[in-house]
């Protein structure tokens, strides 16, 4: 069996997703767009929140520009809404 892919939600996205973390079972390298679509299935609020251009996506702690690229079993995907330090 393949290792799970960890999905992390930060800030307000954790509230909308109903939790900070989720595990996905991917069968192999999968486009981020397809993963985002899967996460939004049956959850229109989450789908809309993840679609916002201000939300950045990181795979294994590297920002994926324009959400291009794939994630594989064992990877960590993070959804990062606008940040606010200081």
């Amino acid at each position: 069996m393949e290792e799970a892919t960890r999905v992390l939600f930060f800030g307000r996205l954790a509230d909308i997703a109903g939790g900070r973390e989720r595990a996905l079972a991917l069968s192999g390298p999968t486009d981020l767009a397809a993963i985002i679509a899967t996460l939004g299935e049956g959850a229109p609020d989450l789908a809309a929140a993840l679609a916002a251009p201000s939300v950045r996506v990181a795979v294994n702690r590297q920002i994926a520009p324009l959400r291009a690229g794939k994630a594989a079993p064992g990877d960590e995907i993070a959804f990062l809404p606008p940040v606010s330090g200081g």
Partner: protein
Amino acid sequence: MIRVAQSLDPQAELAAFSAGRTDAGALASFVGLCRDEGGKVAALELDHYPGFTESEIARIEAEARERFAILDVLIVHRIGRIEAGAPIVLVGVLAAHRKAALHAVEFLMDYLKTDAPFWKCETGRGGKRWIEPGADDHGARAAWRGKS
């Protein structure tokens, strides 16, 4: 040095940071405090992404070291629950001369407000509210672009 911490004592941090630095002629610092917004906010809750947050702040620090003639940088950022009146962030900069130290502190704070991966929500009378950077914060950061 960069640290994400559950507690912050700015005076003790600054004393340790500048101890023995006979090469520095200036220590400039900034402490950000949790403001209660006229009693509406009881506390802030700060979240971060361990590993990612530290490496993003390291990039900001590296840029400050390139731009300004400074000797050392200290950034300590709180996470967790922060009561009104308590410190959230400390930036300290050691330099031979004051201008570089003061400018570097302002630069680091402008970048931390918009670029450091922290997520902040207010809790209090008004319930829970996530805070995202405002136009003023983006303007302050943008003003550094094109400056050398």
